[in-house]
């Protein structure tokens, strides 16, 4: 029987506020799976036309797949969220691109006709699961020089970017960080965060609190203030806490559907998935990953970078975004790039970030009446991810 490929649309995306990892953070006493349950339920509440039993799969990402993130998350969270038992689920991991990979895995199921509707997202409780803490690093990586030792420490890979591209200075990185904070502060005053962030009550040692705002926001950040911060990854280095994303707790969930199912169910799609690409690069320069991924996805679609109206890039390190700007030919100040600030201001809960980017992209394309948008992230162990979207709003 001839197979008919389905168009995939993004219907909606929500996230929790992002908290600082660690005992002083908002989510320290909240379980990761409970955070994921919250965003999945919010997604269903916001889309009441979707009968939960119509969900074909629940795909959730986490980098640390242990403990409260360990019970094949998609299935676990679906059950805890009250989705019917007939709906399956699974967990994926591609580190920082976890949620993007959940989206593309779900999109694959939809395109193949295996599912009509997919919930995809991610969660990372970096307070409970510090990056790499539960990893047993194979000694062959170092003894046989499979990768450079610095590839295991994300901050060190960012220092490597400064080495490789010396014209991308610390000053440029700091300036980018200040802009990220300013844009995020403005975004919290307009509607994008109200539309994409769901407040959640969380228990703490000082009683229940409302987690309704990102904890990393520092709207008063100045260049002078960033100049003298410590460089934890190298003596006299360039990467500081001010020009990188902090360790973060957060969860996201997005809703994908086939174009046909969305129409049948009366869902209002925001974006159409045009194409996606993953690419591998030198692990010790993992930050350049989004460059080949971006080029590849544009090539697939027959577009150039100038055809894209909006970019939502992750910002694990300011220098990482600068290398992408350099590599694809976009100015770091370009208003099309991260108009609502980025991870430097809001935090980066590894496997959760992807859906935040897509949800904000959807809002931004609608606000600007743009056509194409790109979401991209770099990925630990030397990879990049890029998804190209078309605005349907």
């Amino acid at each position, binding site marked *: 029987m001839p197979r008919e490929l389905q168009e995939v649309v993004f219907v909606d995306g929500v996230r929790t506020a992002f908290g600082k990892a660690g005992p002083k953070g908002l989510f320290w006493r909240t379980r990761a799976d409970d955070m994921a349950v*919250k965003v999945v339920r919010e997604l269903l509440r916001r889309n009441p036309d979707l009968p939960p039993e119509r969900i074909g799969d629940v795909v959730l990402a986490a980098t640390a797949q242990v403990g409260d993130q360990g019970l094949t998350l998609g299935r676990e969270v679906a059950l805890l969220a*009250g989705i019917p038992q007939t709906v399956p689920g699974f967990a994926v991991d591609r580190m920082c691109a976890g949620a993007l990979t959940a989206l593309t895995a779900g999109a694959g199921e939809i395109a193949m006709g295996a599912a009509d509707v997919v919930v995809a997202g991610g969660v990372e409780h970096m307070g409970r699961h510090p990056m790499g803490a539960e990893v047993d690093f194979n000694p062959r990586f170092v003894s046989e020089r499979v990768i450079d030792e610095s590839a295991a420490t994300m901050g060190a890979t960012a220092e490597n970017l400064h080495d490789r591209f010396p014209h991308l200075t610390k000053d440029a990185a700091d300036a980018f960080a200040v802009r990220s904070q300013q844009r995020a502060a403005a975004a919290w005053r307009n509607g994008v965060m109200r539309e994409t962030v769901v407040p959640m*009550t969380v228990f703490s040692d*000082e*009683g229940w609190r*409302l987690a309704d705002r990102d904890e990393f926001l520092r709207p008063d950040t100045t260049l002078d203030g960033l100049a003298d911060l410590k460089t934890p990854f190298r003596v006299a280095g360039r990467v500081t806490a001010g020009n990188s994303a902090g360790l973060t707790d957060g969860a996201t969930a997005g809703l994908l559907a086939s174009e046909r199912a969305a129409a049948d169910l009366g869902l209002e799609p925001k974006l159409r998935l045009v194409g996606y690409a993953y690419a591998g690069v030198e692990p010790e320069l993992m930050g350049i990953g989004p460059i080949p991924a971006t080029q590849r996805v544009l090539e697939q679609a027959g577009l150039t970078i100038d055809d894209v109206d909006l970019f939502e890039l992750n910002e694990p390190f300011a220098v990482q975004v600068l290398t992408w700007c350099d590599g694809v030919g976009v100015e770091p100040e370009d208003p099309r790039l991260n108009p609502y600030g980025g991870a430097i201001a809001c935090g980066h809960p590894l496997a959760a970030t992807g859906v935040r980017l897509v949800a904000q992209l959807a809002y931004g394309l609608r606000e600007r009446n743009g056509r194409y948008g790109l979401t991209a992230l770099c990925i630990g162990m030397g990879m990049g991810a890029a998804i190209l979207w078309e605005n349907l709003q």
Partner: protein
Amino acid sequence: MSAPTQFHVQPAETRVGRVALVTIDNGEDWTKPTTFGRAAFESLWRALERLESEEWAGMLLTGKPFVFAAGADITEFPKAVSPELAREGSKAGHDAFARIAALPYPTLAAWNGAALGGGVEIGLHCDLRTISSGVRHFACPECFLGIVPGWGGTQLIPRLVGAKTAVKFVVVNAMRQNKMLTGTDAYELGFADALLAPVEFLDESLEFLVRHIEAGAPAREPIDLSETNEVIRKARLQLEEQLHGAAPAPVRALDLIEGAARCTVEEGYRAEEDALADLLPGPQAQASIYAFDLVERRAKKGVGIPQVEPRRSGSSAAA
């Protein structure tokens, strides 16, 4: 010995303004329920000062995960309690809880977990109540312990759910081996304005309060207490058949509920204080509380067992 209970106040920004989230917490997990002792009241007074002096749009009162509050801390009851001390203990609760009732903005008690005795009574002093369908322990066990609810229970329960349900809840259930209600039962009997699933219980409770504030807080219809005398008359007969005058506490509780139909809340508070001054020093209450402590605390702790972890034996086990 649990850590002292605290009343934490946290501001939450909502559509209607700043709402106070107040948490009753003893810093322990659910195996050590939160109770109200002297330190708890001192903390409540501090919380009330904030709640009374600052600008709030509303207040939501709840407990730590799985537990709302389990009432008075009976480990603080002295071995020989005088009538004056009993009266003081009752009055301390009345005074503090009355200040909650007097707060000039809408208040909501979110019964998220076990609520017993004082845990029920403090919630009665709020304007609204939500209860989790996950609650398994909701009761006023005082009559079971030879005393009566002494922090407003006998006065506010009939005003909230009517005399018939109040008698069942305060007297009949307590005398039936301390039968407790589930959250669903409590909601169906009218104790709560909303029954919410545990999964997002507090988020939805906060939303319930915010919507109530947005809607302009319509007052609850006063309950009809005209049949109280008849209800109490029947209850007295049944109780007499069951006890043959052997226990004074449940009879006293019926007196108090009967009084609720004709006196003010203030007068009712004083009557509760009188009842506790009479009952708590008495032999039945003392014996009951001793027995309850023995069964609920000492026996579970394993009296006489040293507090050390068993050591692993060295190598292989001996056959």
